[in-house]
């Protein structure tokens, strides 16, 4: 009788009290508090027979909001998708707008963007992998690499003034040029981080306990990954070498020399190792990009945005002294710029995979329709398939090795 007194979001299976299996509620918070989502597990002893996931606890109607906002105000919405790598979301959105508007960004802007995007990828993977460590019982690594994330956030701070929800850059480039402190901090990061990450890898990669806990857990085959539209490190861990940066290069990724790490079995260990590999490749890309940025001298070194007065706030001193600048400033702030008609899909390789923006414009000042392809939302479906038959404790490692970010799932 007592169970009838509680209203369940997902009703309990009939006769759940009489049956021999156990129904367990994993959540509603993530067992390691990555966000709010719930799992109803059917267990036989400690073995999982079936899982039923629920999402949507932090749905914030981004797509509806976007239909009433001028383009530049939508950037703040993208921050809150995968908040572990907000700059990639921001840049992806700017590039979508640039594609629609036909804006060509200068090379220096592309390279600066790549530095920021790859830093974001490092900070994203660094959290995911160290959390895998935490969920297997190794807290040290997590605490140790936090300092490096702090270093990355300090670079963001120098560039845009904020840390987590960055709102970094503008349509056409950046709001201001990078200052010297940003470059100094970047240089310092490039020297200190490899040592930190080497040490982190030494703690885990060949650690017997860690391998025993992760190898073979939550295996995802290439076939299933493609059927379930999985992208990003999780797809590559299954052995499919699809990476948006290579398949459809954006922001001049074609100018860089880097590799795409792939796995074979797509289990928790492979996902961990693919992310490790990607961190090293991101470092490689940042080093190359920084060298390329340094090659710009004189006036070229002052270029930090494209010439798009309709979308780019003029300098404050010009607003006070020049009529043209004042008009643009007013029009941009009031959202009085008409967007050209069109329909565009643009995607970037986000921390979790292909982050797509489908933008339909009817010529108004706001998008007619904007849809975010959130990789996390799509690949979380596969979770119930890959934890079937595994132990409860492995299911928690699988949850963290997929890098599920509630913000990206619920939009």
């Amino acid at each position, binding site marked *: 009788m007592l169970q009838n007194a509680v209203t369940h979001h997902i009703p309990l299976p009939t006769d759940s009290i009489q049956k021999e299996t156990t129904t367990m509620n994993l959540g509603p918070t993530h067992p390691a508090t990555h966000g709010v989502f719930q799992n109803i597990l059917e267990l036989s002893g400690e073995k999982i027979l079936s899982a039923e996931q629920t999402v949507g606890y932090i749905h914030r109607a981004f797509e509806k909001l976007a239909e009433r906002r001028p383009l530049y105000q939508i950037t703040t919405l993208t921050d809150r998708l995968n908040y572990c790598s907000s700059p990639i979301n921001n840049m992806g959105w700017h590039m979508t707008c640039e*594609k629609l508007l036909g804006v060509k960004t200068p090379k220096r802007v592309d390279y600066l963007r790549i530095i920021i995007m790859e830093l974001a990828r490092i900070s994203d993977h660094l959290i995911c992998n160290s959390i895998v460590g935490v969920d297997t019982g190794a807290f040290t690594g997590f605490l140790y690499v936090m300092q490096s994330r702090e270093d990355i956030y300090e670079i963001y701070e120098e560039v845009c003034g904020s840390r987590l929800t960055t709102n970094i850059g503008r349509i056409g480039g950046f709001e201001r040029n990078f200052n010297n402190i940003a470059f100094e901090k970047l240089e310092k990061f490039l020297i200190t981080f490899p040592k930190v990450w080497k040490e982190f890898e030494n703690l885990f990669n060949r650690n017997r306990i860690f391998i025993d806990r992760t190898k073979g857990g939550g295996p995802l085959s290439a076939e299933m990954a493609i059927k379930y539209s999985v992208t990003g490190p999780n797809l590559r861990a299954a052995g499919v070498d699809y990476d948006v940066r290579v398949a459809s290069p954006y922001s001049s990724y074609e100018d860089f020399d880097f590799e795409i790490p792939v796995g074979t079995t797509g289990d928790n260990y492979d996902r961990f190792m693919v992310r490790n590999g990607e961190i090293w490749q991101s470092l490689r890309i940042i080093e190359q990009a920084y060298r390329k940025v340094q090659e710009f001298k004189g006036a070229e070194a002052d270029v930090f945005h494209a010439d798009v007065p309709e979308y780019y706030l003029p300098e404050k001193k010009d607003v006070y002294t020049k009529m043209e600048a004042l008009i643009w400033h007013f029009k941009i702030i009031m959202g009085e710029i008409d967007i050209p008609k069109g329909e565009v899909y643009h995607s970037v390789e986000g921390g979790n995979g292909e982050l797509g923006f489908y933008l339909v414009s009817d010529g108004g000042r706001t998008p007619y329709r904007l849809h975010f392809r959130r990789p996390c939302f799509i690949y979380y479906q596969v979770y119930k398939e890959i934890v079937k038959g595994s132990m409860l404790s492995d299911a928690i490692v699988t949850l963290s090795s997929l890098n599920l970010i509630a913000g990206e799932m619920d939009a």
Partner: protein
Amino acid sequence: MDMGLTNEIVKAKLTEKFGDALLNWEEPYGMLTFEAPSDLNLKVMQYLHDDGELGFTFLTDLTGIHYPDNKGSEIGVVYHLHNLAANVRIRMKVFTDINTPDIYTATSLFPGANWMERETFDFYGINFVGHPDLRRILNVDEMDYFPMRKEFPLEDQSRSDKDDEMFGRGGSYN
């Protein structure tokens, strides 16, 4: 697989197979886009998926769109398909009457369409025929409307300081 797959080949093959049923061919920003009749969506996708040369085996995205002024075909589903090996993307649209928004589900071809269709149902009320588990996913189960449809304004419509004219549309809808 043929690495030289182009938009022209895709269009030619589809036209050969389905004739004039496929309409409104466009290539906005290089992506081949077309419209299929709502009762053919699954057949077209099956062909795109199974044909050795076409090989569109990856469903990138599935979402809905609402054009209240297009009487009789107000509600649409937009599919983005990808041939990963040849790296070609295409976009297929299917429109249906808002009073009978029935579209065949793509879950038999792409299991990953499951949640994408649930999301589209949740926000646009599209009934995906044959879907194994068509329930709301992001909104609460008790909700009795489909919030992304254009008749549901984001803000209080009694406000006079913010009308559609401010968004460049002259108040033509709502």
